[in-house]
């Protein structure tokens, strides 16, 4: 019942971003993806959405290769990217209603107000999105991503713009999602927030997962030291090691 990424490669021109990357995620697991800027974290997420086609490799869910041409396969995925995917002139509720209709889930007022209350947006739900702050947009976009109860959540920097309270609400939601057996893949630079919810950390370098760390009562200091070691390794040295 897991999500498996097998031998995925992607390059832009001559620049190899992902190089035979392998990664496996179990249900109820939240994997936190770390790495330098340009290490290919977002590229990997986009490949998992099916929006970007890899040159080689495949993505499997429950021992079946995902066929992104199938609408159901795409509906299994909830997505939070750098851009919030919201319409500025519509209110929060209207934005949610639009996506609820596209996904054909309950689009009545009660359901949508409940969805916005989950991210603490009940007070602003009927205000147009153009009046929102970055953090409010981020909250709403998280509600949007969870709206159709997807089995896989792909989150690119979900803490962007969120205040302390927002981050805590988000963490609470993610813990619920983990309990429901969702598979969650997240990128972030905010280790202190990510630590309590992450099951595992993976470090991306040279186009593949170069190291992993399972979160068994790790302290923030543990993970920060681990990451600092990874980042301190000069690229050329890694190159030599890989060769």
């Amino acid at each position, binding site marked *: 019942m897991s999500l498996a990424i097998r031998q995925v490669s992607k390059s832009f*021109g*001559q*620049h*190899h971003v992902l190089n035979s990357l392998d990664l496996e995620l179990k249900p109820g697991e939240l994997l936190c993806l770390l*790495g*330098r*800027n*340009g*290490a*290919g974290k977002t590229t990997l997420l986009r490949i998992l959405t099916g929006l970007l086609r890899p040159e080689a490799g495949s993505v499997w869910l429950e021992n079946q290769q995902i066929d992104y041409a199938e609408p159901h396969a795409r509906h299994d995925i909830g997505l939070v990217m750098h851009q919030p995917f919201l319409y500025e002139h519509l209110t929060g509720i209207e934005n949610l209603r639009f996506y609820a209709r596209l996904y054909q889930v309950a689009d009545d007022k009660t359901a949508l107000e409940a969805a916005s209350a989950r991210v603490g947006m009940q007070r602003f739900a009927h205000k147009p999105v153009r009046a929102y702050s970055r953090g409010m947009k981020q909250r709403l976009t998280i509600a949007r991503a969870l709206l159709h109860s997807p089995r896989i959540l792909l989150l690119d920097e979900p803490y962007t713009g969120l205040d302390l309270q927002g981050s805590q609400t988000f963490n609470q939601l993610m813990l619920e999602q983990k309990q429901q057996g969702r598979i969650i893949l997240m990128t972030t630079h905010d280790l202190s927030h990510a630590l309590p919810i992450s099951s595992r950390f993976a470090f991306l*370098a*040279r*186009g593949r997962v170069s190291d992993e760390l399972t979160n068994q009562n790790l302290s923030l200091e543990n993970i920060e030291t681990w990451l600092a070691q990874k980042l301190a390794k000069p*690229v050329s040295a890694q*190159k030599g090691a890989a060769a």
Partner: protein
Amino acid sequence: MLFANKNLKLLSFLALLLILAAFAMVLFYAPIELNMGIVQKVFYFHVSAAWIGMLAFLVAAVCGIVYLNKKQLKFDHIAFSAVEIGLLFTAIANFTGMIWAKPIWNTWWTWDPRLTTMTIMAFTYIGYLLLRRGVDNPEKRARFGSVYAIIGFASVPLTFFSSRLLRTIHPTIFGADTGDMAMIPAMYQTMGVSIIAFTFLFAALLWHRSILAARESELDTLRAQTEALEFGEVLDD
């Protein structure tokens, strides 16, 4: 390096010979038409150029379809080259048409269906080139170019039918519905040789230009890499 390979060299010389032959036939073999006089001779190259204009657009549209299916940039290079050459030949067809029209129809320009269609087609070609200039990413540029070449080509027959519905005074030579230009065998032969010569010329030019387009694309990649290195953008690998 003028010729990338032997076949291209052969094709280029063949095209040259055929063009010279066509020239000779137009000047010395084809008779002078009774009603129109010497100026009628421009029409051998006029029709041939117009034919290449159409053929080029067809090639671009077909390469567009192939590109969208295969996603190999070489088909985009061929499509782009075909459009550039097609634009040149469309211009030749228009100008030779004007040279002919001035003494015969007593005007440089008429709203004749073929002339109108040819000119609108030229604008579609120009649009195609502008569209490509507006996109930096080569993959996206190829996709958009392909889509536009396909829809542009689909609209050409419709443009022709509608301008024909409006009016026509253009002489119809093939599949004549009115017999306003009678051709004798020597004229047909000259016409045939001209069209074949232009087709070979087109093939040779297309080949040369596609090679150049592929080189340009390589150069772009190299340049992008150098820039990325200079700005230190490639942090990993």
